[in-house]
């Protein structure tokens, strides 16, 4: 038995023993995710236990080094863990912007002290993080941000406002872009800082979306004290940290194009087949087939990009391509899902429509091509970095 086979056998046994039955099978809905944090809520006590046992092993962040609380697994081992979890349909023990976003940034840019302090509590789900990038009026022009940090010796005083901060009202800490040099060119006077959302002067207000949900907040900073030790990376070079992180986010959002049941089956469930065995809406059928071709090709493209990245055959800007295509595809997919659902899917509050799940999901997808850099911004990046077009 190779090392990897041994690892697989042990992992399988451990998961069997430790993954509670309640934490197996698909999530009923997005609200049931485990986010951790000081005020964590859990669907069942088993979900809490599942987060904790996985966190102890570092398997919520399997590839992070053990000295920072991570699992210390190799990429191959992490894949085995993933496939064994899928085998028993195990739910994710922890959803976390700390794991997805801040962690990779700290591992790359943080001081030893910062890594030791922040990473372990992220792994264990003790602290929930949110991201403070966008500002009202800035939109795609992220670097035009106005939130300013005044130097007061050993700390800064931060004033300003962020918007689109996901779950800011439930987060414990924020990683945040602030302007530390108002006189520098706009990309050069920005720093990447961390602070506690419980600091006096921080307030949040949820934003209701067209889907009726409020995952996002406006977040206000009024004379908020931020310690200088919580600067990540170099002063006034926070844009580098942010860019690295954004590329990461783009890949994640782009991957949405990869989700869900085949649209043809969704449509057949709703509309049935005609006497020739074809979907009983010929025009919709043609659109669905085109979509399924694009979905299949996009999935393969994600796989290919992964392999190209590994083989160092491609620029990191390729993430913009996946972000752009994946989010546009996901929007198209949900337009077709609504057409397949017909009037049933238009019911906003009935139990039949599960309180308008399809419609709310459809509306939610419209943000895919806006958040994490709009489709237009991705196309600009492709034109500039991948095609080297002049003036792009």
């Amino acid at each position: 038995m190779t090392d990897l086979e041994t690892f697989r056998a042990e992992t399988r046994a451990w998961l069997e023993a430790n993954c509670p039955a309640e934490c197996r099978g698909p999530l009923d809905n997005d609200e049931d995710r485990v986010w951790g944090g000081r005020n964590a809520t859990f669907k069942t006590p088993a979900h809490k236990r599942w987060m904790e046992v996985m966190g102890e092993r570092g398997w919520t962040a399997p590839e992070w080094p053990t000295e920072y609380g991570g699992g210390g697994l190799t990429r191959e081992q992490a894949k085995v863990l993933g496939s064994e979890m899928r085998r028993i349909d195990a739910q994710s023990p922890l959803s976390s912007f700390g794991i997805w976003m801040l962690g990779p940034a700290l591992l790359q840019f943080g001081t030893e002290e910062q890594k030791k302090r922040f990473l372990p509590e992220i792994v264990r789900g003790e602290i929930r993080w949110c991201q403070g990038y966008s500002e009202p009026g800035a939109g795609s022009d992220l670097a035009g941000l106005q939130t300013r940090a005044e130097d007061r010796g050993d700390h800064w005083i931060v004033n300003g406002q962020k918007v689109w901060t996901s779950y800011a009202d439930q987060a414990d800490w924020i990683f945040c872009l602030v302007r530390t040099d108002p006189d520098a060119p706009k990309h050069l006077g920005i720093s990447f800082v961390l602070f506690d959302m419980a600091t006096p002067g921080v307030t949040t207000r949820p934003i209701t979306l067209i889907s009726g949900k409020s995952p996002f907040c406006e977040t206000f900073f009024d004379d908020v004290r931020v310690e200088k030790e919580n600067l990540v990376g170099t002063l006034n070079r926070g844009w580098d940290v942010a860019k690295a992180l954004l590329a990461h986010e783009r890949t994640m959002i782009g991957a949405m194009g990869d989700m869900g049941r085949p649209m043809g089956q969704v449509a057949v469930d709703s509309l049935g087949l005609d006497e020739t065995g074809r979907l009983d809406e010929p025009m919709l059928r043609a659109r669905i087939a085109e979509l399924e071709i694009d979905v299949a090709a996009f999935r393969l493209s994600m796989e290919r990009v992964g392999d190209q990245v590994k083989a160092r055959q491609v620029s990191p800007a390729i993430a913009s391509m996946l972000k752009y295509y994946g989010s546009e595809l996901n929007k198209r997919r949900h337009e077709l899902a609504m057409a397949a659902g017909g009037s049933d899917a238009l019911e906003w509050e009935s139990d039949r429509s599960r309180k308008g799940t399809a419609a709310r999901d459809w509306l939610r997808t419209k943000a895919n091509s806006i958040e994490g850099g709009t489709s237009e911004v991705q196309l600009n990046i492709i034109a500039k970095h991948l095609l080297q077009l002049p003036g792009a």
Partner: protein
Amino acid sequence: MPLILTEEQTMLKDAADGFLAEHAPISHLRHLRDSKDADGVSRDLWRAFGEMGFAGVIIPEEHGGSGLGAVEAGVVAEALGRTLTPSPFFGSSVLAARVLSDAASADQQAWLPRIAAGEAILSLAVDEGPKHQPARITTTAERSGNGFKLNGAKGFVLDGHIADALIVAAKTGAGTTLFLIDARTSGVEIERTVMVDAHNAARVTLTDVQVDADAVLGAVDGGEAALESALNLGRACVAAGLIGAGDQAFLSTVEYLRTRKQFGKAIGEFQALQHRAAHLFTELEIAKAAVLAALQRIDAGTEKADLAVSVAKAKAGRVAELAVQEAVQMHGGVGMTDEYDVGLFMKRVRVLNELLGDAGFHAERIARAGGY
């Protein structure tokens, strides 16, 4: 017939736009929605609609209506699309009024004046499954005693929860028959279904609903022509509503492009957005021509007006869809918030697209009629 509004029609348009801007702007929809109004429409507004002559726009003057045609009904529908005003206009003033205008004079006298006055609300119950398929009705009406017994389930019945009476399309052996049924008849169950756009519809279940023979509108087995004629008028008016909503979303977007600044300039200066806006403008103008032509042909009784209607409904649907998608995308993050109106347009367009046959349904009709 020139493909532009006549002077009278332009006056009607100004009147409708002006009335709605004053009495039922988008805040009216928000109020009904957020206060969880039990009706989902304002009865007062509907009576005012009656007074203005809008509720009875196609109803003959002898029955208290304005005695106007499809083009004028389209003008009102487009105005409603611009302000997203919930009202029983499509169900009561267009579909039901059109069916009734072919009915016996007693039925006309009983209902048309009250519809025109905005006092009565009637709903047409046709759809059964998730898609509009009027050729495949399965609700049945069997002879029973002095009349008929109806069984079946209907959905997407516009304003069914506040209807005084329902016009139900049912199979009677060989053909389709239309029945006018009091909403309080025993065996009729009506459940309001709040829709994504905060406009109104209902599901109607008919369980051994016993009606007299005089509930039949027109002839037994002979309801198909009246139904088809009403549906076609309805489709053309819904297409006009799509134009109203799509065009209004477009106009707000162009305004936003002119004023919103990013990277130090108005976003409308970015050529990529300019070209998309110009393309959308073009599509909207072309859709407007198709819709007005369909309405005019209905009025003129042109042969194949039904195909012009399918062109209009399909084209207006696809274009309005593009308009609201571009509107949200070009507005960026704020376009996703409930606070901005642009999302409301997106929701309304989705419902109007589905209503009385989506673009695919109408494309199928075009193909069939084209012999391919």
